[in-house]
């Protein structure tokens, strides 16, 4: 019996080793092949010097990181505002009853509009339109309009995410809360929304990934954030390496967030703790 077991284990080990070897070999062939094709392309030396110049990279990186602080300001502020405003919109949409029809219509129209219009247009219209009205100090920091525009656009997306979460909570939960004498809003606040938010953490973070990348669009209204800075650096060095550096910075900051989303989804966020005996 022990002989058989040992034989089985040997078989398992051999198979494991063999599949690792195959995986490694296939990686070498595919990625090695791709690299070989690129490196042997006729224009490779020129591309290498203009996109992958180590000297330019290290010279511009400190300035890029400085400028990236502006992007961080933009997305952190916008994210906080989006969480609040998006939730308000979602709650407005989930109010039942004929009295609340105007509120529901308004909130519907809002999410439709701001999901339909390209974000860069909203940034343009607000960034140049509001100062153009002449109502406020023309020297007002353009970053504020950038934050406002990003908040307006992403709140529309996030409101939909929240709403899906709220609607995924079984009505029996609300019934249980209301039967105890909690008001409509108390039931939302203490029973429905806490469960809904837990379920929508992964899609919420996905929208934040989009928001973080869209902060480069604020460069179009004159804010010198990382992308605008890289344009300037590129023009000064006659070299495209700064753009590649910007790409790297976003990869470094965004990839961990993507994996956080996956990790949270695995830990049961998103699927959500099902209400005990939700069927009725």
């Amino acid at each position, binding site marked *: 019996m022990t002989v058989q077991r040992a034989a089985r284990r040997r078989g398992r080990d051999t198979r494991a080793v063999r599949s690792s070897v195959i995986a490694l070999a296939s990686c070498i062939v595919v990625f090695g092949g791709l690299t070989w094709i690129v490196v042997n392309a006729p224009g490779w030396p020129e591309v290498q010097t203009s996109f992958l110049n180590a000297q330019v990279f290290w010279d511009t990186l400190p300035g890029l990181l400085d400028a990236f602080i502006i992007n961080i300001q933009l997305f952190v502020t916008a994210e906080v505002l989006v969480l609040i405003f998006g939730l308000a919109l979602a709650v407005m949409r989930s109010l039942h009853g004929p009295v609340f029809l105007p509120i529901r219509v308004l909130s519907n129209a809002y999410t439709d509009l701001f999901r339909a219009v390209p974000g860069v247009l909203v940034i343009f219209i607000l960034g140049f339109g509001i100062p153009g009205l002449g109502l406020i100090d023309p020297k007002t920091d353009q970053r504020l309009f950038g934050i406002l525009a990003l908040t307006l656009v992403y709140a529309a997306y996030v409101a939909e995410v929240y709403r899906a979460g709220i609607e995924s909570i079984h009505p*029996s*939960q609300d019934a249980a809360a209301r*039967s*105890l004498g909690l008001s409509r809003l108390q039931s939302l606040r203490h029973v429905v929304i806490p469960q809904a938010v837990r379920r929508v953490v992964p899609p919420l973070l996905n929208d934040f990934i989009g928001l973080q990348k869209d902060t480069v669009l604020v460069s179009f209204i004159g804010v010198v954030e990382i992308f605008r800075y890289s344009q300037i650096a590129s023009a000064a060095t006659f070299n495209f390496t700064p753009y590649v550096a910007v790409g790297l910075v976003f990869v470094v900051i965004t990839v961990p967030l993507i994996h956080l989303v996956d990790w949270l989804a695995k830990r049961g966020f998103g699927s959500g703790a099902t209400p005990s*005996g939700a069927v009725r």
Partner: protein
Amino acid sequence: MSDEPSPDSDAASDGHGAPAEALCIEGLHKSFGQLEVLRGIDLVMAEHEVVCLIGASGSGKSTLLRCVNLLEPIDAGRIVVGGTEITAPGVHVDRVRQRIGIVFQAFNLFPHLSVIDNVTLAPRRVRKLPRAKAESEAAELLERFGLADKRREVPDRLSGGQQQRVAIVRALAMRPDLLLLDEVTSALDPELVSEVLDVIRGLAAGGMTMLIATHEMGFARDIADRIGFLDEGRILEMGPPREILSDPQEPRTRQFLQRVLDAGRL
């Protein structure tokens, strides 16, 4: 028991003077779309009375209970609880519900809250008790129902019987005048039924006014002051358990009890 036309006059509404009935339902009608689920329910319950409603699935038992708790808007008729007409226009619905507890077949505990938070949520938010006071009251109730060591657990970690007892405690924490129990043992494994029924027996002994929809005939016979047989949205027959279960007058009641007997549930 026959349908009586519901008196729409205002004169009877307040019932001042005489001790108020715990619950008075007159001419209650309720439809879901085309389907008329309740077709004229009349029911009067005295304080401390326990009434069990029996009848086939779909006969309207659950709907009746949900109407009494105003979880379903009614189409016609009136419901008076403790002398207040709760179906009158302009009634403060949340305040009415505080006085009427309901326990559901599927427990409907809040899965994101611990047992103690499930129980104290309404006392703190609705009765506005400070946390410490609400928790000491809740701890007392949990202790009484053998759940003292479960107070920090989340509902999903409890057995069905324990969950349902927590749901009962949660309703009791609002100190209701009237408790509605909607087939509270139907979702339980057979071996967990008795622990929940024992709790309800204890409540009856303590004088709680209860309206109970149930399939447990033996339990109904033990605990009920009166049993009502619901059939197609009407209370066809009502009386002391012995009359209804042993000597039913209506053929429909006999049929139903025979089916229950055949299924070995009596």
